[in-house]
């Protein structure tokens, strides 16, 4: 089962670049990165090398080897439900570029969220 991270390259190990320019552009948009047209080509190529390398690992792994998400084989690490001191408003806001009325002040949220 595992996580459905759908990266095309992991499915087809053909050696042909399989992350498209459009996919890079979409990922850049999701990550709020301004990427130029030239960079799209550059990054598509570079990312493809990375994906190919990961795919090589995937090639070795067989069905009886579960995917690793954590390096340490631990489970159930819990904390007691006991309150610990917080930072306080002043300290919490001390690193903020802008604050107002005890709150973090951030630029208008982008039009796409409206």
């Amino acid at each position, binding site marked *: 089962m595992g996580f459905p991270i759908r990266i095309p390259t992991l499915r087809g190990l053909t050696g042909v670049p399989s992350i498209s320019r459009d996919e890079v552009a979409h990922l850049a948009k999701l990550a709020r990165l301004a990427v130029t047209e030239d960079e799209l080509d550059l990054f598509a190529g570079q990312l493809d090398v990375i994906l190919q390398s990961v795919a090589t690992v995937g090639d070795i792994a067989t069905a009886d080897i579960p995917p690793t*998400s954590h390096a340490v084989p631990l489970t159930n690490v819990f904390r007691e439900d006991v309150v610990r001191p917080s930072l306080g408003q002043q300290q919490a806001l001390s690193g903020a570029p802008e604050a107002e009325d005890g709150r973090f*002040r951030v630029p208008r949220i982008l039009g796409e969220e409206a």
Partner: protein
Amino acid sequence: MTSLVELMDYDEVIEKYDPVLGLEVHVELHTNTKMFCGCANEFGGEPNTNTCPTCLGLPGSLPVVNGKAVESAIRIGLALNCEIAEWCRFARKNYFYPDMPKNFQTSQYDEPIAFNGWLDVTLDDGEVIRVEIERAHMEEDTGKSLHVGGATGRIHGAEHSLLDYNRAGVPLIEIVTKMIPGTGRRAPEVARAYVTALRDLLKALDVSDVRMDQGSLRCDANVSLSPKTTGALGTRTETKNVNSLRSVERAVRFEMTRQAAVLSSGGEVTQETRHFDESSGSTSPGRKKETAEDYRYFPEPDLVPIAPSREWVEQLRGTLPELPWERRARIQKEWNLTDEVLRDLVNANALDLIIATVEAGAKPDEARSWWVSYLAQQANTRGVDLPDLPITPAQVARVIELVNAGALTNKLAREAVNGVLAGEGSPDEVVEKRGLKVVSDDSALEKAVDEALAAQPDVAQKIRDGKVQAAGAIVGAVMKATKGQADAARVREIVLARCS
């Protein structure tokens, strides 16, 4: 803005379409601390006072899971008849929006802690519908944004936003139903009844405040319409900001009539998030839905997996309290109530109050009588729900006790209750302050009776002539003279004795 929206007549909607519901309920747990840090989990408070490096997403901070929250999640899953995962992980849901300072929300994705359950929901007429539960997963709440500069406080038109992260990281359980088809005309009612049943369940489990008005219980209603002619599944919308049980019903109904109008005019329903407006009862478009892939979920590397042992799960199963429907069934049997009476008590939100009053010492019929008559009238007059009346079951039980002890007449008891409702204190304090006391001193009553008889000699003569029903006038006069503080039955005895 809503006047421009075309709506189809509800009967016509039902004639042409089958509604399909899906409900997502978010419930904030009332643990002492947040999900991944030791900051206090409190409603209200000065902004950003309950924050630390972890819930502010500062570099180098690491989350640690609140064990109590996991326990609550498992108990909720068990009460919803779910399977509990043997092993599951948290995941990062990545998005850029300032309500989460980390730029991701720690949630669960395809490995929820609980899945495949059901909840039986009782409708107003007593019909029971089984709602299948897809999953219940753990996540954290977001901060609160205040949009400044926009006219409505919504994002649209705002110049900037102000963020308070007190709520960021508060433990949240998201409970998702499977698609609920086949409810037809009753879809809005089913939606309300489901959220009501879930709220009662969560309350009984004592895991949350379940206050819709404060946002500790929130419902997103997914609605789509399937044309009866083709049976094809429709495109769904997700309505948010539904902040009361009544709104759940209204929002579903509105979406049904709106979508039907869109479809019948040849249009297409847009898959989107919609915003419910309490005052107009309508919904308006919000943002377009991202696809799950756009959130680029991946396993949270900073938190190790959760693997609840079967022993732990069974131990938690043992902590489940009597659940609302079990309680109702028991009470119905013990008090010998008909289905109809039980349903009326449940619909009036009276059952739990009556049970609590009985637990505080009253007899079931006495408790019932107070809550369904006098107190129900008071709630009605004030326009509040019965449970919101400012009187506790224990106080009602005390009033009943005073009546049974002969310290208050029924009339005085109502006055004592009025005093409690007016915020004058406990029943005993009201009795003291208002000087509410039954006049039980016979000599005082005899004196009052004699005065009344002397004032109405013709009535006195009638009584002496054997017209016993005429005594009522004298009793009334005595009650008036003693400001209702006399025991009417005793006064009547004295009147008859004096005239014999």
